[in-house]
């Protein structure tokens, strides 16, 4: 199998809000190797998150292609794209984005439900994953009863629910105190050591320094491409 898990080709994204056109991305071409740890950095509002959304199949580009395992995901139908998100990609967001009405365990189970797992398999794996992120005591806690760091670890467990090849994280520690941040980062680094491809959008220099590849996005374009 090809060593490249993600490749983008001349990605453009233009937002039309009323009469104002915003060019969020202006021709981004990049490659990310399988099993690598990659950081996307750059000033706020310059297109990092947009790039992340396109790579994760949450949005469609105005122009260009996104290749996941060599397949152009921009050509997939909405339902195939949804199935791909369920099976191949795990998302972690800055604001955790847990479902508030559900417990930690149920949040992880829901992600597996969309991939078609049986309820028994869902429960077993959800418990195992929450133990993996150090939350075996909080299986039945609601998000509102968890600290920020704990919520983010639930989100990571959820991202891992269907054993995806790729973890996409948008400022995963942006909303955490330093203690929680350390907990979360430790989990992320461990996952990388276990072979997951991790792509993190971040402002955090400490993470960037430990990455194998740092891509700087400025004005919607790749400004710097550093292999560490």
């Amino acid at each position: 199998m090809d060593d490249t898990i993600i490749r983008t080709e001349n990605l453009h994204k233009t937002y039309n809000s009323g009469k104002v056109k915003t060019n969020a991305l202006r021709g981004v071409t990049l490659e990310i190797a399988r099993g690598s740890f990659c950081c996307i950095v750059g000033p706020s509002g310059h297109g990092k998150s947009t790039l992340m959304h396109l790579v994760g199949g949450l949005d469609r580009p105005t122009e260009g292609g996104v290749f996941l395992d060599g397949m152009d995901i921009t050509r997939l139908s909405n339902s195939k794209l949804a199935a791909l998100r369920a099976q191949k990609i795990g998302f972690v967001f800055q604001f955790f984005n847990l479902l508030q009405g559900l417990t930690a365990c149920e949040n992880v189970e829901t992600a597996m439900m969309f991939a078609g797992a049986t309820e028994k398999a869902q429960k077993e794996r959800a418990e195992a994953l929450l133990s993996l992120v150090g939350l075996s005591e909080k299986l039945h806690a609601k998000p509102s009863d968890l600290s920020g760091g704990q919520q983010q670890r639930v989100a990571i467990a959820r991202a891992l629910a269907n054993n995806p090849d790729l973890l996409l994280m948008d400022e995963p520690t942006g909303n955490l105190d330093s203690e929680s941040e350390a907990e979360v980062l430790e989990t992320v680094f461990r996952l990388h050591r276990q072979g997951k491809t991790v792509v993190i959008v971040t402002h955090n220099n400490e993470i960037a320094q430990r990455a194998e590849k740092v891509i700087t996005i400025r004005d919607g374009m790749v400004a710097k491409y550093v292999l560490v």
Partner: protein
Amino acid sequence: MNIPKLVMKNITRRKGRFVFTLLGITIGIASFVTLLSLGGGLKKEIKKQSAELGANLVVTPKGWCAYEQVSVLTGEQLPEAIPFDVVKKIAAIKGLNSVPYLTERTAYQNNPISVIGILPEEMRRFKNWEMEQGKYFTAQDEKAIIIGSGIAGQFKLKPGDELTVKGEHFPIKGVLKETGGKDDIAVYMPLSVTQRLYEVSNMVSFIAIKVDDISRIDEFILKIQKAANVAVVSDKQLLKSVLSIVGTVSVTLQLIAAVAILAAAFGIINTMMTAVSERKREIGILQAIGASQRTIFSIFFLESGFYGLLGGIFGVAGGLLFSLLAAPYISQNEFTSLIRGTNVGEALDLRIIFGSIIFSVAVSLVSGLYPAWKAARLTPVEAISYG
């Protein structure tokens, strides 16, 4: 986790909204059920009354409107408009049995009671009356009263007691066996006595007729009309005109019910639309972790359906309870007094129960279509970047 479980968690999470939306649907369906069952009860009862009249034909004065024809069945006081010689002429026609009715009103312990003047022997033969207690009239002009079993029960009257009608005392001679109909809630006096008492010499209110050969009914109508200048209504015609009035009432009731349902439907649409915009972010999260548009649609669609199911069940229960509680009050009205004998359980048949629940679910699903479609149409980024 499965979709229905997720739907249940979504619904029960916001308890206040859940309760109020459910109330909206419940009230809509309850009024629907109540009005339907009252309308249905009216129809049933009217059919029963006209069957019980036991007549194939009813002779009324010319020019009576449908309302007055209905009154024949309700036993209300009617104008004394047919001269007695018409009764005689009709009785003389071969092949039919006829009995005149003179319907009047009196009061006992401040309750209105129907007093019906009859030809004792003819009436007993016509109706096959039997006695529960006491004895039947023995003479055509006997100064006595026979009472229906309902009246006897209601006022604890028995043979030997006295009733005062128009200031005159009458001994109660007997109590009729229960017939299950209007005959139970009237008192009977010989026609001549009633005519003297109410000063309507030689007049009656209407005449009920049974023909020996039902297939020659048209022939009999012509014969009667030839013999006297009166209107003759067959039971079918009578029933038809009665039912057309009831039909109008039913349609009105159903229209009111429809408004209630419509209000409930918009309640659901409103709730679901609010839910969609409130839960935009949640929809985005679900999409990000792999929910397809179809799944999002079914989540919201099922949610409305569930509201409909619960609202339907509670609504039917509420409607039943309301019919039960309201029926006595509604029967105070002269026209709806027909409902009096109606058993709510009988009026609210299984068809109405299941029909209403299914209807409620259907209305809710239709109301959920647009919000569910709106939710499914959101793109993941649009939804997740919200709020």
